């Protein structure tokens, strides 16, 4: 069994929770569908997004330098980091020079990727997550299970119990409005007392030297409103040419992510307020290597909207923690493989090859096709699952030889059911084997027992 299947079995042990998780995400997907269908030029927008990203990726050096030049002229300070360690070191250095012990953070998958929060903790700097879902996960000491909906797998009663412990809310009260407003009050204190703010970057606009941060809660905006230091970290693929491109992406992002026509706040940072500083750290950490990978460089077009997760039948029914890479779903399977096939190869089987992800991706990334390609590559590298390989080989022989095939079918129909419908057959976990018909279709057809469609009379 793959690492994914094993972990999924654990998630599926709680059947109610698994069914609820599946439903909750499907609702998000349905909202996305309604939004997509309400925009007449939706498919044109997706194509445009894909083309803009491909264009930018093919001139990435040019656009990054242009962004740096313009951002610097606007008064920001730009840094370059080759890998996770370098990013953490640079952030640590900025914090040290500025002074301060409390950093308020808005959601950033890059900081997760680089392990920034534990690094800062070692330096004696506390990083507090301010997005509600991220904060819930931070207080639970667990990673997010979805890139846009970090606490999608957590039930309201669990949040109630957590907040009762951490924020002294009323015992037994798990009303989402009550809990959200309790967190608002509590985090407001953090916002007021933080010395440093940190955000991710959704889009860095090369021609203007500005960058966009998109949230619904306003946590990034409030976070950057009080302290005099703002550190923004970005993967180098986040750069786009201009505002015309930004407009295309903002029309797609929230519709794809949560089924809203736009995020509540699409904030553009261009010039620090007098007496304040904005630092932007541009991070590579393996991205240039992915760009060299012709078969898989498409992954760098990703906007991190999460639509591929919400639509994925495997993700919805196995949960974010069933994947061994920190990003789950079709996106995570692919990014994990780009990071290390040896470490994350166990995820590629978590895909039914339905290709729904490829059809919803606003940047038209061929996620499903790439997972298929990884499976072929894994076989060539000799890391494919031996049990599955054996099965496929047997099927291959069986299907190529008519006589053998029909004998096998006959045998199966005559054999007592327990021979194949048992717990040693992995296919039977959570489902019943279908019954084999007494007589095959082929047999029925040949003996004339199937009505032939009548020829039309002229």
């Amino acid at each position: 069994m793959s690492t994914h299947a094993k972990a999924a079995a654990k998630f599926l042990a709680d059947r109610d929770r698994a069914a609820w998780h599946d439903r909750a995400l499907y609702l998000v997907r349905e909202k996305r569908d309604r939004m997509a269908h309400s925009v007449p030029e939706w498919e044109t927008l997706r194509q445009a997004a894909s083309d803009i990203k491909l264009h930018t990726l093919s001139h990435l050096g040019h656009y990054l330098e242009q962004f740096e030049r313009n951002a610097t002229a606007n008064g920001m300070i730009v840094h370059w980091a080759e890998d996770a360690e370098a990013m953490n070191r640079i952030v640590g250095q900025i914090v040290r020079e500025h002074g301060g012990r409390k950093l308020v953070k808005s959601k950033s998958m890059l900081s997760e990727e680089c392990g920034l929060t534990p690094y800062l903790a070692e330096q004696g700097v506390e990083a507090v997550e301010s997005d509600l879902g991220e904060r819930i996960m931070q207080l639970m000491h667990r990673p997010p299970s979805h890139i846009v909906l970090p606490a999608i797998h957590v039930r309201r009663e669990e949040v109630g119990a957590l907040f009762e412990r951490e924020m002294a809310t009323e015992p037994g009260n798990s009303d989402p409005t009550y809990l959200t407003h309790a967190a608002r009050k509590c985090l407001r204190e953090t916002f007021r007392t933080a010395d440093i703010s940190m955000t991710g970057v959704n889009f860095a606009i090369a021609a203007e030297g500005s960058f966009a941060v998109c949230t619904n809660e306003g946590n990034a905006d409030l976070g950057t409103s009080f302290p005099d230091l703002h550190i923004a970290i970005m993967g180098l693929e986040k750069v786009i040419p201009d505002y015309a491109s930004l407009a295309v992406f903002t029309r797609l992002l929230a519709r794809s992510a949560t089924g809203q026509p736009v995020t509540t706040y699409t904030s553009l940072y261009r010039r620090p307020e007098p007496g304040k500083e904005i630092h932007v750290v541009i991070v590579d950490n393996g991205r240039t290597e992915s760009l060299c990978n012709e078969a898989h460089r498409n992954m760098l077009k990703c906007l991190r909207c999460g639509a591929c997760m919400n639509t994925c039948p495997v993700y919805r029914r196995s949960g974010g923690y069933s994947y061994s890479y920190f990003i789950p779903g079709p996106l995570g399977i692919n990014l994990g493989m780009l990071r290390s096939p040896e470490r994350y190869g166990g995820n590629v089987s978590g895909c039914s090859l339905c290709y729904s992800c490829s059809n919803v991706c606003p940047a038209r990334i061929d996620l499903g096709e790439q997972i298929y390609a990884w499976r072929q590559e894994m076989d060539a590298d000799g890391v494919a699952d031996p049990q599955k390989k054996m099965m496929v080989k047997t099927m291959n022989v069986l299907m190529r030889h008519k006589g053998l095939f029909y004998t096998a079918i006959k045998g199966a129909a005559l054999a007592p059911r327990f021979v194949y419908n048992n717990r040693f057959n992995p296919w039977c976990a959570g489902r019943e084997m279908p019954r084999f018909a007494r007589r095959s279709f082929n047999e029925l057809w040949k003996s004339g027992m199937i009505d032939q469609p009548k020829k039309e009379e002229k």
Partner: protein
Amino acid sequence: MDAKQKILQRLSQSGMPEHPMPVLDFEREHFDDPVASFRQAVEASGGRVAEWPDGVSGAEMLTSLGIELSRVVSNVTGIPAALDPDEVEDPRELDGEKTAVVEGVLGVAENGAVWIPQRARHKALYFAPEEIVVLLPRDGIVATMQDAVADERFNRDFGFGCFMSGPSKTADIEQALVFGAHGPMKLTVVLCRDAE
């Protein structure tokens, strides 16, 4: 070689074929009544839309919206403010039971967002108060985000600016929608006479 040089060198060796920048001249969503669509979109995002009738004073207009004048923080001419946000040294003083009254420039019919470039000393003005009122000239309403950034009133020389649609919200607890996550709990867009 420093990090930047190394990254740029690796990028130049990516072997990625040249892709042209697409021409973004495709037909965009059209609205027969952009103001009505804008109003709908703002309401769908949890905000409300009001009008500022001619001949009505700022104080009367705000009072008719149920806003207590003693809470008003604003630097907009014609708005009676209890507090001038630009007189405040520490942006934290803008936090609390206050109503910010600010100016928006463009409204987007497809999603109810209002483009608000920073026109105050502290950007905290737009996020820290509990309530925000955005004054928007009626003729500032455009169809889509693409129309907004192409509009000449979208002046690129800002320090900070925000496309804001509705009050702050979250659905992080069991996907139940709750207004007032961290930013303002309430948002009103007041449509004003066309800008001169």
